[in-house]
């Protein structure tokens, strides 16, 4: 009987150690370290045909001066750059309001042999800060004038 309760304790201790170990592995980033959030244009180009037709996430900056926006057909073309390589992206629909030259973006879509990335989803990388405006700064107006081209009132 005593060996029975002893084994019960043993089962508890073993289970506790296993659970704690698994959590340590999960929390201390044993998995997250090699998680890839997106491919840079250079990496995607390097993959070559392997990536054609597959759903991938491409991240980088909007190459300055590359944006071609056709408001009538809601057709957006721009290039994503990582400094070394550029990839042509084609997207349908209105871009996010903060979309502009030099902005960090992540696009989800397919890259084809035609060397054009067909985007299904376009997102902006935006810093998440809570800040009071600096003296003299009128962020809301600044924001508007940047995005919509409206005059600050």
């Amino acid at each position, binding site marked *: 009987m005593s060996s029975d309760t002893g084994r019960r304790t043993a089962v508890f201790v073993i289970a506790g150690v296993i*659970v704690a170990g698994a*959590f340590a592995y*999960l*929390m201390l980033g044993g998995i*997250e370290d090699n*998680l890839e*959030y997106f491919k840079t244009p250079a990496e995607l180009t390097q993959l070559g045909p392997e990536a054609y037709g597959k759903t991938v*996430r491409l*991240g980088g900056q909007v190459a300055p001066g590359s944006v071609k926006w056709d408001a009538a057909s809601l057709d957006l073309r721009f290039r994503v750059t990582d400094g070394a390589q550029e990839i042509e992206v084609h997207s349908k629909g209105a871009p996010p309001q903060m979309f502009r030259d030099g902005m*960090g973006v*992540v696009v*989800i879509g397919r890259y084809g042999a035609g060397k054009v990335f067909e985007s299904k*989803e376009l*997102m902006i*990388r*935006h*810093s*998440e*800060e*809570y*800040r*009071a*405006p600096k003296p003299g*700064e009128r*962020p*809301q107006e600044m*924001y508007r004038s940047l995005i919509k081209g409206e005059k600050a009132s």
Partner: protein
Amino acid sequence: MESVVNRAATAAPMASREVRWTTVGVAGLVLLVAAQVYGVLTSPPDRDMGHLQKIMYVHVPAAWNAMLAFLLVALASLRYLWKGRLADDLLAASAAEVGMLLTGLTLALGMIWGKPTWGIWWTWEPRLTSTAVLFFMFVAYLILRTFVDDAERRAQWSAVVGLLGALNVPIVYMSVRWWRTLHQMQSSPMTLDSSYTWPLRANAVALMLLMAYAVAHRYRSALMTQTADELMDRLALKGTPGGSRA
């Protein structure tokens, strides 16, 4: 069964404890009003979201305290499994009820905040989603309790469910975070202006006091109900020696 009756029999210290908890509750209420007034009146509008930032003062403390309530459920459940005292189970249940309210409140406030800032009531953001999962686990925990009649069995089962739920929370959080961050970038770590931190802390502490009061109050009511049930059982089994529930 280690009796709740015996605990309730010592009524005098219980009464003074009651007074102490009432003080905590009143203090929490006063502090909550003060902290909200202070926060709303003094903090400047946020650069991006303007005065909407003030929703932070109710939303974030609710979320923090919901986590705290869940921690309390897990600890009380663990202690119940360890010691087998029915009172710990009632404490876990009281904390779960308050926790369910707080997670529900967090979700509602998150939606109210999300609509004007994001333009949508709901998004599959990791924290939002894990809070929703937490809410469902609280609900399932409380429903389980209503479905089981025997007190001992209810205590054992809900303790186990509470414990496993607590184990799942970090895994849910991690999985949802990967699932979403793979799609949407989470950029820099959270930064908060110093003018916002103090009202936030004050609100969090106020809500925590209120939560402690609520849990204590609910716990004592549960103890009383349990005592009454035991008295009734004793009455029903009067004359049968050693008669207690199977």
